[in-house]
């Protein structure tokens, strides 16, 4: 089932959790460009330091795929601002999703790499787009299987706000009110997640 919207020159492009494909040009609008994303991640780094003053036991855990480049950039920002060298983990939430029994096709699994123990650390989950809160719920369950963090905080580059669970995002890059029939996509050059990054809003499902 090849998706007509997938750019043909990016066979390795993996869509991120919220959306399956890049759109036809013309229908999308860019809501954050690379500069705006960088600026947001600098501001979030300041907020993380302010909120966790005196805390060196922080652990950045990215939700793949979109959270990965963001967590790396955030770690870099925290290093240059405060000298903190923080571990960066990757935690796939697919095996913890609450909709697996509703779908005929099983979603592909993504990489999980947790280089440090979570016990006694403040874990900062990093995702590209927060919406219903279900991915964050799954991520918290997954995290608890790795140990007992002393706290969990959440970063989302974009918050769409259609929350279905009582989940709070602690650090938001930008609130973007969207229609449920729209997709919000973080993407990089040629469909990868390499910079320059941008966030676009596209109508869901192509032909409306």
């Amino acid at each position, binding site marked *: 089932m090849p998706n007509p919207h997938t750019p043909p020159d990016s066979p390795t492009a993996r869509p991120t959790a919220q959306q399956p494909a890049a759109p036809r040009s013309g229908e999308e609008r860019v809501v954050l460009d690379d500069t705006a994303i960088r600026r947001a991640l600098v501001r979030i780094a300041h907020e993380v330091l302010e909120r966790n003053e005196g805390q060196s036991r922080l652990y950045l855990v990215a939700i793949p795929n979109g959270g990965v480049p963001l967590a790396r950039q955030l770690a870099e920002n925290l290093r240059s601002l405060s000298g903190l060298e923080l571990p960066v983990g990757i935690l*796939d939430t697919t*095996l*913890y999703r609450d909709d*697996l*029994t*509703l*779908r*005929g*096709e*099983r979603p*592909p*699994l*993504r*990489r*999980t*790499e947790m280089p440090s123990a979570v016990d006694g650390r403040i874990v900062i989950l990093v995702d590209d787009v927060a919406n219903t809160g279900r991915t964050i719920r799954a991520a918290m*369950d*997954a995290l608890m*299987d*790795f*140990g007992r963090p002393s706290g969990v905080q959440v970063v989302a580059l974009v918050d769409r706000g259609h929350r279905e669970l009582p989940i709070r995002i602690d650090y938001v890059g930008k609130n973007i009110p969207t229609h449920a029939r729209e997709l919000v996509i973080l993407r990089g050059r040629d469909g990868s997640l390499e910079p320059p990054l941008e966030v676009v809003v596209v109508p869901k499902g192509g032909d409306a």
Partner: protein
Amino acid sequence: MIGRDLLGIEDLDRADLERILETAERMQEVGTREVKKVPTLRGRTIVNLFFEPSTRTRTSFEIAGKRLSADVVNFSPTSSSLAKDESILDTARTLDAMAPDAVVVRHKVAGVPKRIADALAAPVINAGDGAHEHPTQALLDLLTVYQEKGRIDGLSVAIVGDVLHSRVARSNIYGFLKLGAEVRIAAPPTLIPPAIETLGVKAFTSLREAIDGADVVMALRIQRERLDGAYVPSIREYSATFGLDRTKLRFAKDDAIVMHPGPVNRGVELSHDLADHRPSVILDQVRNGVALRMAVLYLFAGRPLAAAREG
């Protein structure tokens, strides 16, 4: 496109194989955790329906199911209560009425998993049927080779031994060929299936020719009852000609690996030394079996049945 059942590698295409292997690589990570359990199949029931005794495969499926939080029930009817074919389907239907989310079937007769699948609503996973197929064994072998060599495409794979009676060989032949490897088999003429070359393999009666330049040498288990005259003159002769040791292995590539589906008849298919040490990767195969079966259960078990049937 992954369908309802996993009956054989013959039914899968390259994309299916790659998807299963990629899923298994991700499942390996779960096995490295302190808490080796994810909630994915919570509330799902998997029945291990083994008409033929098997400790290893059954245990591997059981651990895989439990790591995904499924309830795993082992059902091993005695052969005496199942003399008639009819009662096999009766047993299967009885189980089906208990609404399992997957049934893992092993039977000594080829085709039984397919017949059970036709009678059941639940997905059926073939855990070995006669001399037909043993798909999860081939998949774990493919995973092991892929991780050892970094690729399957273009490798030279030699399968040595009782190919005639081996479901492991048949499934591996399909799997390696579909992923672009070259497959050679080596066996005494009595143990080479007629017309095997129509599958796309090269058959040799000389071990040396078959393993010449091979990247992977896979020894098959030989049943002791086949070593007494009818197929092979004697154990001694078989192991002298087709048993692998370090001397014979010199003809393969320097970095060739040695595989065996287990359990090894030490000193027959493999020398004692090779059975236990590199370049044999037998325990990696076993380890990978759990992750691979987790991947298979994830992809096949507990999907909404209507959707699974369409798939």
